[in-house]
């Protein structure tokens, strides 16, 4: 039996010209895969296609519940933290929402509106909203790119620990190679409209922030950087 949880075969997405062409991707259940590449190479387009937001040619087999976190959190300003988290879930089960608030460490902020939160807290709410639907596949579109360096690092560590516990199949697109190595099981580079190189990350999870000071980390980072 195939252990593929997500399978993308011959994916083509065309706007004026082809942005993605003949792209293949397989992901195992619980695997964390990152796609790195330069700006404008089609990383977000790939996520949009998998989320069902773009027209595409080819085959995408994915599990039922797909969730997404965008770069700029995109919380609804008219909803408080609890309401934003509950947005996608059909259940109004308060215990479930409270459990998510506990997970994203925002206890006491349930009634706060997005404009009353810091950037890191806003992004945690966006992640909470994504987790609240109990997703089988989590899509992350440069989720920490709009945060300052320290907040971004803290959020990476927090997400690392969170996903090690929850084992959700996750696809991250980012231009930050450090972030990709710190979080992923596998990294692909997106170049020339398709995935070109595959890198398996040898470090055990959950990973500490200090891992990036290891020579192996820097050597891997250099190899990935040189590949695109």
């Amino acid at each position, binding site marked *: 039996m195939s252990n593929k949880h997500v399978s993308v075969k011959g994916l083509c997405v065309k706007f004026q010209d082809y942005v993605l062409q003949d792209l293949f991707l397989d992901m195992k259940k619980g695997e964390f895969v990152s796609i790195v590449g330069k700006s404008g190479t089609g990383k977000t387009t790939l996520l949009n296609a998998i989320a069902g937001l773009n027209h595409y040619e080819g085959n995408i087999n994915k599990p039922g519940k797909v969730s997404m976190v965008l770069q700029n959190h*995109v919380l*609804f*300003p*008219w909803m408080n933290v609890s309401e934003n988290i509950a947005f*996608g879930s059909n259940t109004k089960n308060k215990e479930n929402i409270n459990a998510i608030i506990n997970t994203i460490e925002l206890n006491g902020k349930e009634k706060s509106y*997005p404009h009353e939160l810091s950037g890191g807290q806003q992004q945690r709410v966006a992640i909470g909203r994504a987790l609240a639907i109990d997703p089988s596949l989590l899509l992350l579109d440069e989720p920490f790119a709009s945060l300052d360096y320290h907040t971004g690092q803290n959020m990476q560590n927090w997400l690392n620990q969170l996903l090690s516990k929850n084992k959700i199949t996750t696809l991250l697109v980012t231009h930050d190679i450090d972030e990709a190595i710190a979080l992923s099981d596998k990294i692909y580079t997106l170049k020339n409209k398709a995935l070109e190189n595959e890198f398996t990350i040898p470090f055990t999870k959950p990973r500490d922030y200090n891992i990036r000071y290891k020579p192996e980390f820097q050597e891997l980072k250099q190899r990935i950087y040189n590949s695109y």
Partner: protein
Amino acid sequence: MKINWKAIVFFLIVIGLWQLVFTIGWFNQSLFPAPLTVLKSIIYLFVHENLLYHIFTSLWRISLGLIIGASFGVLCGILMGRILFLDESIAPFFNILRAFPPVALIPLIIVWFGIGDIAKIFSIAFAVFFPVWLSTLIGSKNVPKDYLKVAKVFVKSKTKIFYKVIFPSTIPFIMNGIRLGIGTAYVMAFVSELAGASSGLGYVIAYSQIIYRIDNMLAGLIVLGTLAALTDFCFVKSAKHIFPWVKINEQ
């Protein structure tokens, strides 16, 4: 509540200049009464001319006209903003109607609806409709793409996307449209009560002109302006309370 001292000082300067012009005697004093005379007229109108009744009559017409005009404005704005066919077919017609000065329609409205309350309420509703419609239309056409993207990822029901995302996203625009509509409603109430009315602030001002009481005319105008400003103030405060996330300029 924070007191706006700058505004208070500016008001005092305006009243001071007014008194100065009166004292110097640049104008005929019967045509240009002093601020204190106008204040006395306001008190006189309240005590002897039943000004409160005229205020409530005008406010009733304004409220009804505002509610009717704004409701249709919001409904048409939302529908035309989200349904391209409706926008393309109806918007050009509305844009022609929008260019009509509502004041110029009053004689026609009197012919059609008579001189009763219906004509006045219709005039106000007609004038209020356009700023609310246009503002709502712009808002509902410009729902941020990221909001719709998130909505489509998490929610499959179009109805839920509409009332959870599209409509709330349009609320700041609706608020702006209604604020513009409040000012327009007062103008139209005044104009429609100038002719063919036996009550309302416009009537008080028109009657004061007939009996040549300039102080009463100014008193009526000041009461009208103050009421309009108070309505706007109350609207902004209520909107901020109900929708704390909407950024509304209080000025």
